[in-house]
């Protein structure tokens, strides 16, 4: 039995469809109910929905053998897992954004609001820039507008939210897409099953290109 952690939300539904197309369907998952775990015994697969940022924790700790999560999560938490495949969906980018008229002249400590503390720290320490990190848990865009921070480090998908709030992307940090990850120990004991799933998914990634 392979345990699969899926990220709750639109991305997770897309990912499930990819798994189903590979022959790992589990129809009960689409029923509208409050169940959290869905199993298809015959196919040897069990799915569960978790908060997207928790997927890597479930996999690293072995509660899930494999899972799908964004590259942003992997770079932020650096879990000790195998990253087997780029699924090429859920594409967006990690970026620095700020008010249109803001210009960083490097003379002051830069105030950075973000959910991704480690990503922001690493990025700015790579540029030797002195920063003051402000950790927020949501509605990051509001921070520069209210003067809480100079810039934000956040995920940008289409840029609509930024535009509507008079903000713009200043720098791109890295591109993001969904990745298939696997627990290292599980991979040793369920090598063939996990390889098979990864291969099937890789085929679909190719077809989608």
């Amino acid at each position: 039995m392979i345990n699969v952690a899926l990220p709750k939300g639109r991305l997770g539904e897309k990912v499930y469809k990819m798994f189903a197309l590979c022959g790992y369907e589990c129809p009960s998952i689409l029923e509208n109910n409050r169940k959290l775990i869905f199993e298809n015994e015959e196919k040897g697969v069990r799915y569960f929905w978790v908060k997207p940022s928790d997927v890597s924790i479930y996999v690293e700790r072995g509660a899930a053998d494999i899972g799908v999560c964004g590259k942003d999560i992997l770079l932020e938490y650096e879990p000790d897992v195998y990253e087997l495949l780029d699924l090429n969906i859920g594409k967006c980018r990690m970026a620095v954004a700020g008010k249109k008229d803001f210009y960083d002249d490097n003379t002051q400590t830069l105030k950075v609001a973000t959910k991704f503390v480690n990503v922001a720290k690493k990025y700015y320490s790579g540029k030797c820039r002195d920063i003051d990190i402000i950790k927020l848990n949501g509605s990051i865009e509001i921070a520069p507008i209210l003067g809480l921070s100079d810039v934000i480090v956040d995920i940008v998908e289409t840029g609509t939210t930024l535009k509507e709030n008079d903000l713009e992307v200043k720098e791109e940090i890295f591109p993001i897409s969904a990745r298939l990850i696997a627990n290292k120990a599980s991979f040793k004991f369920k090598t063939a099953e996990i390889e098979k799933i990864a291969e099937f998914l890789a085929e679909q990634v190719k077809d989608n290109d």
Partner: protein
Amino acid sequence: MINYLKNEEKIILSLRALYSKYGYLPYKMNKFEEYDLYAKNKEFLIGEGVITFTDTHGKLLALKPDVTLSIIKNAAESKGVKNKVYYSENVYRISGKTREYKEIMQTGLECVGDLDLYDTYEVITLAKKSLETVSSDYVLEISHMGILSSLIDSVSTNEEFRQEVLDSIKKKSKHEIKAVSQKYGIEKKKTDLLCEFISIYGEPTSVLSRLDKMDVNEEFKLATNELKELVALLDGSVSIDFSIVNDMNYYNGIVFNGFLSGVSECVLFGGSYDKLLSKMGRRSNGIGFAIYTDLLEGINEAQSKFDVDTLLLYSENTKIEALTKEIERLNNMGKSVSAQKSIPEKLRYKEIVEI
């Protein structure tokens, strides 16, 4: 009778018996060691910090974060002689991720001195037997750092590229290797070689035959042959995996990891560390491993339903002689007894006896 030895304690006892059988001597380490020893070799303790404090003379000491360094520091050197020791110690580190202090239980062994192929074989066999002691469902993976380093040397000497590509190899990420190679302008042929390389793992015979087909350089061939010799002795009961990446400044030859079914992380780490020894100005070779025994807590063990067999209730008026006699009687029947004046809230017992 309630089981008074915890599972991991039983395992540690059997491991000690196993290592003694092969002539390994027990090693008891001082709790504190001069910080200098670790400062000089800080990358040896992969990304984890050392807990330090000053002694009464103002000297900086470390709460032992590791046993290997202390053992090799003291190992005698003479031709044909090997120092074989085992240990079972708690070590203390600052976790790389959470920055919290943590205590880790380690049982392991080191073989240091004038080593040959037999010693490598012996240590790996003992690693295998150690895993077998815990469970028959285990995986022991070996790799050769020489194969990895010669391959990467042949691709690029750029230190940043090496770091990033090693990270991708560790994660078995072909797509990351491609991205990194593109970033550093590595030619396609070499990128393909790296991608081919990380898809090689598992059963030794097929792995080795695929390695033979890879044309890299002379060092690659030499390291592959070393791995071959060892695998032939081991009778195919290990698997090969090059995603085991240890620090190349310390580890040079064979490295290995052990996994147990039901434990979600690697429980056994080992390898040969000749480079560490030469950095310390020594001519010896060294190989060893450690098992993180705290990860074995609860493995193969059904949680027991009771804390004691008998709850023996006595009162103010009970004579101590009578109480002692009753406890002895119950003990002789093989029962564990907790003598109490009233029933403790959380104690789980099989029976109550009142006197």
